[in-house]
């Protein structure tokens, strides 16, 4: 039996193309699914737009010649003013979205507040993810007393409404004149507080995954090669659990932005004069008669941001679900 070399090459090439069609990796399939998921893509676009706007705050501030900190009692409670759309009528066109109770520009203030709220949510989520992964891998890998202890801590933390814990910790740290100075003053403290309380869910997730991974052959072979437990945990296990937790990151950020907003609304989160979407609503009840937009706008921005994050979180989960079919 003879076959020409070119025919063999052709059939091999054919095989290869078939191969690439069949063996799409999980990530490739997820990405191709995501690119067809219009809702998730829209949410992503809105979120990117909001983030870019927030970080362009200084540009808008200088272009409109307004200030987000300077108070001006004579111009307080100015209405929304967009002359091009005939909104507002005879008003100051510098203050597009009007001014607040102290005469500060609401538009620029919302943008700066966005920087604060978005960064707190993002970095707190990263911190709680780091703690959650570390504790989850360690408890899952070692088991025994460490596992029991961490489980006890988680049960204990979960037995008190998180809001009360958050309240106690923030009240203590943020109202303590010695601690609230320096790096603990302002948003940084809130990142630490939210991060330190948000890890329990991730830990449970990672612990369960670690329990199954540590029995696999490649862990056994790593052990046989003399790898230290630390190396096995952080070089062999962590990369394998990473994909599961990275998916919940978006929803985590959303939840943390909500928590920050609630704390700041109650007056113990981000401190004025630093604006955050939550603390712009602290005195909302007194604005009911003077300026309803002061109540509506900050909340609407929290809502849109968190909604986008939740939609992206859902979209990622569906896209990475190995059991779903195209």
């Amino acid at each position, binding site marked *: 039996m003879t076959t020409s070399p070119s025919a063999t090459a052709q059939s091999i090439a054919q095989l290869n193309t078939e191969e690439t069609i069949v063996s799409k990796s999980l990530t490739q399939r997820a990405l191709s699914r995501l690119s067809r998921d219009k809702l998730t893509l829209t949410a992503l676009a809105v979120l990117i737009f909001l983030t870019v706007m927030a970080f362009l705050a200084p540009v808008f501030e200088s272009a409109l010649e307004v200030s987000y900190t300077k108070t001006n009692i004579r111009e307080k409670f100015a209405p929304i003013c967009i002359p091009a759309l005939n909104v507002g009528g005879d008003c100051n066109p510098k203050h597009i979205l009007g001014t607040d109770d102290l005469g500060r520009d609401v538009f620029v203030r919302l943008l700066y507040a966005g920087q604060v709220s978005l960064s707190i949510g993002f970095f707190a989520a990263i911190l709680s993810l780091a703690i959650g992964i570390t504790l989850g891998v360690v408890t899952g890998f070692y088991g025994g007393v460490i596992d029991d202890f961490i489980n006890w801590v988680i049960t204990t933390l979960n037995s008190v*409404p998180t809001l009360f814990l958050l309240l106690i910790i923030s009240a203590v740290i943020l109202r303590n004149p010695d601690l609230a100075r320096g790096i603990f003053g302002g948003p940084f403290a809130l990142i630490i507080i939210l991060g330190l309380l948000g890890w329990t869910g991730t830990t449970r997730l990672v612990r369960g995954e670690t329990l199954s991974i540590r029995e696999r052959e490649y862990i056994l072979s790593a052990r046989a090669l003399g790898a230290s437990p630390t190396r096995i945990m952080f070089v062999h296990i962590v990369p394998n659990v990473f994909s599961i937790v990275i998916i919940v990151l978006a929803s985590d950020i959303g939840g943390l932005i909500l928590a920050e907003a*609630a704390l700041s609304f109650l007056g113990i989160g981000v401190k004025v004069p630093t604006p955050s979407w939550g603390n712009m609503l602290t005195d909302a009840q007194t604005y009911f008669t003077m300026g309803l937009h002061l109540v509506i706008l900050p909340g609407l921005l929290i809502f849109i941001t968190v909604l986008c994050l939740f939609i992206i979180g859902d979209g990622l989960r569906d896209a990475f679900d190995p059991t779903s079919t195209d």
Partner: protein
Amino acid sequence: MIRYIARRLLQSIPTLLGITILSYLLMSFAPGGPVRALLFGPNTRPEQLARVAAVLGLNDPIPIQYLRWLLGDDWMRWDSDGDGIADGSFILPLDADGDGIPEPPGMSKGFLRGDWGKSFIQRRPVDLIIAERIPATLELGVASLLVSIVVGLPIGIYAAVKRGRIFDNTTRVLAVIFNAVPVFWLGLVLIIIFGVLLKDANGGPFLPMGGRRPPTSVGLPPIWERLNYLILPTFVLATGGIAGFSRFMRASMLDVINQDYMRTARAKGLDNRTVWFRHGARNALIPIATFLGPSITGLLGGAAITEKVFSWPGLGQVGIDAVLQLDYPIIMAVVVISAIATILGYLLSDILYALIDPRIRFD
């Protein structure tokens, strides 16, 4: 079963102890703390601060303060001849402030013996303050739980039956939306709509903007006369529950819908309604029991903010105010009560789970 309940209750003791230690430790990091809040003013002299702190026992080491809160101090320093001056001491020094006169003996019996102390700010017994507030929180909590179940479960069932149709997609989107709305802001917006913008026939607000009863009423009118006060806070608090219950029920119903007995029921010629509700929903309800525990914690946490927004005179509002004023005795009582409620909630949902599903055994 009884052995299982007893074991679970025993297991919750270290959890509760852990919670009290954790909260006490956290609060102890606030220097000056309640004394500074109490005597805030430009004319307060340092000696005054020191004296109040000594009277409240805030100068003692943290472990002693914690022990005093937990077990009382009548056994720490005692007065055997009854002249009001301590003559024996176990842990605390006889003359703590060093003025040459021994301190009066300890009087408090501690949390475990039912002495919850006095509020630093209100100067009233904590158990009295808490007892006044519990009915309001229970009222709001029970109302919201009922609304969440009554609205959430049917939505979940119908969404599962009509999977992929408009109703299913709409309710799923609504659930995400309700999860993403900040609770306090939803409250504010509803107050604006129903309290500021909409008017009733007399030109007053369409629904009350806050509170639990008309300000003019003497005492507390029966609940049916103040339902209008309950509508907005109940709805705000129930949104999370409705979203949670409906999604959980949908998932549970989808698991059930493809079971053989469902096909059998249909093959017998039963109509859709009987198949869905008699055969489907009743079985799909079983896992819902596990969702009750977490939803109680969620209600308690959410209630605090909702109570604050609507000036609802409940436990959560007292808790928030106590935290802001660093009123230790009240904070501790609120934390312990909410922890007990949560632990009991989880236990209850596990017991319920076993009662409705005979396949589950606790041994």
